[in-house]
């Protein structure tokens, strides 16, 4: 018996628990842990490119551009089949973290460049050590300017989590597809998945816009 109606709420209520569970267990976990990795690793990449000896910084720059300019999906597949001892979810978190770190590194670079030269000169005048210069003068100012751009990348990452379908991790969209395939009914599940993405990402991006205006000085 094929349901020919345009919309049937029964399918919404039946599929919602699985989708919400997958949302919390996969989509949110990958976004949060992946962002944490990207935020830290991105800063490391930016600092290495700036301060490490030329050959090392060249190699890091090339690797960064290579990862930035190649598809996340292929990187996921690659690592999924290469690191067979890792769980697919771990692979997903690592690949998302490293992929987005390469984007965040550029954000940090712009942030560091935007710190006025006088600040650097002042640390020299106060004969601060390089470590102290970075930790207590440059990074706090650089990071302030980068918060909105980093936030936007976190939202992008969130919206790309369905790419995990490539490595057999069932995220929210994967759960939607599984329900749809079982019941031969896809309309409700994908609309609900889209709405959940919208509900989570739209207010966050409004918040980031407001933050951007407040931090602009």
């Amino acid at each position: 018996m094929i349901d020919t109606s345009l919309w049937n709420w029964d399918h919404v209520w039946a599929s919602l628990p699985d989708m919400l569970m997958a949302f919390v267990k996969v989509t949110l976990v990958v976004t949060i842990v992946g962002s944490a990795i990207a935020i830290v690793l991105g800063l490391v990449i930016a600092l290495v490119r700036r301060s490490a000896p030329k050959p090392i910084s060249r190699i890091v720059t090339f690797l960064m551009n290579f990862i930035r300019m190649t598809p996340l999906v292929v990187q996921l597949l690659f690592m999924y089949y290469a690191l067979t001892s890792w769980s697919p979810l771990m692979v997903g978190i690592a690949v998302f973290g490293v992929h987005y770190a390469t984007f965040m590194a550029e954000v940090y670079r712009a942030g560091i460049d935007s710190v006025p030269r006088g600040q650097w000169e002042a640390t020299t005048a106060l004969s601060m050590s390089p470590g102290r210069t970075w930790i207590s003068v440059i990074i706090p100012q650089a990071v302030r300017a980068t918060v909105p751009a980093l936030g936007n990348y976190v939202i992008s990452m969130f919206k790309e989590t369905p790419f995990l379908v490539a490595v057999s991790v069932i995220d929210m969209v994967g759960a939607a597809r599984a329900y749809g395939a079982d019941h031969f009914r896809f309309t409700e599940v994908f609309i609900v998945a889209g709405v959940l993405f919208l509900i989570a990402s739209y207010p966050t991006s409004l918040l980031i816009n407001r933050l951007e205006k407040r931090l602009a000085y």
Partner: protein
Amino acid sequence: MSDYLDAFGRALPQLLDGLLITVVLTLGGALLAFVIAIVLGLVARFDNIILRGAARIIIELFRGTSLVVQLFFFFFVLPLPPFYTQLNPIFVGVLALGLNYGAYAAEVVRGSINSVAAGQWEATTALSMTRTQRMWRIIFPQAWALMIPSLNNLLIQLLKGTAVVYTITIVDLTAVFNKLRVETSVYFAYGIALVIYFILAYLLMLFMNGLEKRAVHKLGRQAVSA
């Protein structure tokens, strides 16, 4: 290793077909995205609140829901009742990529037009140009130079986004390498796949940089980005 090269040689015709599909998806998606971006970007600046509101809703809808959701929606939902519309998967791919990245690019178009210097707008009023003349001859050429770097980034994102279409049965570059992986090794197959995508992205970047140089040169300025 020579086994791998043999397998690679045997897979070469399929590889070229896959490459063609990826290029078609990228260029088709980019073209559709460009048209959508210009239209939505211009309409999102209208005074008429209904048109402006409609453009905003479309932009936020396609930006806010994920590319994969849109792809699956067009692919899985449309053939079922009550729509009964079976689209060619490649067309579905182009449609989803075009709508998704078009919505992002619309914001770039709108933002760039808004950031053309106020004096330029005032000058067109002083010269009593019509609205069309103003946009076409004065504002858009300057906004165009501003928007190319962001469009460049989006174009590379779009190319990278095409790699997910193998999940809706399209045999693109990624799908061909998924097959080659079985015959050779993970490192060999995906290593080559990544290099090919990198070269494609690099070519797109060179093209867009050329476009930017031209656009900036036409305004009688020097290009800012290299």
